[in-house]
């Protein structure tokens, strides 16, 4: 009897979660949070690519020849995918790009966390000299954004306020 009641509760919870994730407002909010975050994150990198290049150098993961190219291109990939998410232009592709970037950040942060390498993440602003954010906090935040990206990516119904549905 108790097992049956438990199964029913699990079934109801599962149904509620399914309804929540299939709700078009949930998808819209996830898409806009990601979009605004990435546009905001791109701003200071675009106006000050030299400082951003130094932040990339600080991660100590990329060959020297790639640092400047990444510093030039990455902020615009953030900007364009953020805009595409908000406006609903190729939302699937934009979510894929954003999650690709988030996965890269998560791997980079994890590597530096494991090897105890101190650095400035440079995510939203450039820290003062010697300023280091908590890598664990950054990691948790990026993982949360990654799940928002998955919501956009796996949502397969009609999206709200989209210029192109991208389905």
């Amino acid at each position, binding site marked *: 009897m108790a097992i049956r009641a438990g199964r029913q509760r699990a079934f109801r919870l599962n149904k509620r979660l399914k309804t929540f994730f299939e709700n078009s407002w949930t998808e819209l909010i996830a898409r806009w949070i990601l979009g605004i975050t990435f546009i905001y994150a791109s701003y200071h990198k675009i106006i000050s690519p030299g400082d951003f290049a130094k932040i990339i150098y600080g991660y100590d993961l990329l060959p020297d020849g790639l640092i400047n190219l990444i510093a030039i291109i990455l902020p615009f990939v953030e900007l364009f995918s953020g805009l595409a998410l908000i406006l609903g232009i190729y939302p699937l592709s934009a979510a894929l*790009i954003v999650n690709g970037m988030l996965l890269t950040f998560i791997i980079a942060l994890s590597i530096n966390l494991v090897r105890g390498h101190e650095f400035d993440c440079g995510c939203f602003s450039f820290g003062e000299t010697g300023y280091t954010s908590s890598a664990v906090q950054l990691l948790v935040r990026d993982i949360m954004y990654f799940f928002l990206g998955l919501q956009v990516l796996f949502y397969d119904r009609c999206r709200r306020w989209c210029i192109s549905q991208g389905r």
Partner: protein
Amino acid sequence: MRYKDMSKGLIILLGLAVIAAFTANFLLPKGIALVGQWDESQGVITARAKDDVVDDDLEIDDVEIAKQIYGSGEAVFVDARSREDYEEGHIKGAVSLPVGQFHDFIDAFKAQYSTASTIVTYCSGRTCDDSHKLARLFFEQGYTRVSVFIDGYPGWEAEGFPIE
């Protein structure tokens, strides 16, 4: 269809981003070179931005040479780091002139050291360009004999040279 659309979106978004990125980098006053100087053995690291302050010709890249200049007593060593870093430890006899507060302190500095003085700036090593920024500000004030000791306080301290 879904994957075809997604691939098309990826190509369009990434293509536009790359074109916009290189155009903006070319037009913006803070644009950077395609390849920077990221080898610390070659000097202070820099993205080689259009407004770059790093000037290789000013650099003293050997701690021993810096020590000789220091030993001659003819140069004023100027610490470009924050006042807190300076108070934690600095080259013995160095003057603190944090680069962010240059204009607050330069008049007092000038009253003590004329523009004919030999100045050696330093900060916290080869990943730091504050000493170069400070050197540029000194040139703007009319100082002509300015050098940058690029190994900074960590390099000096590592050699066991006088600190306080």
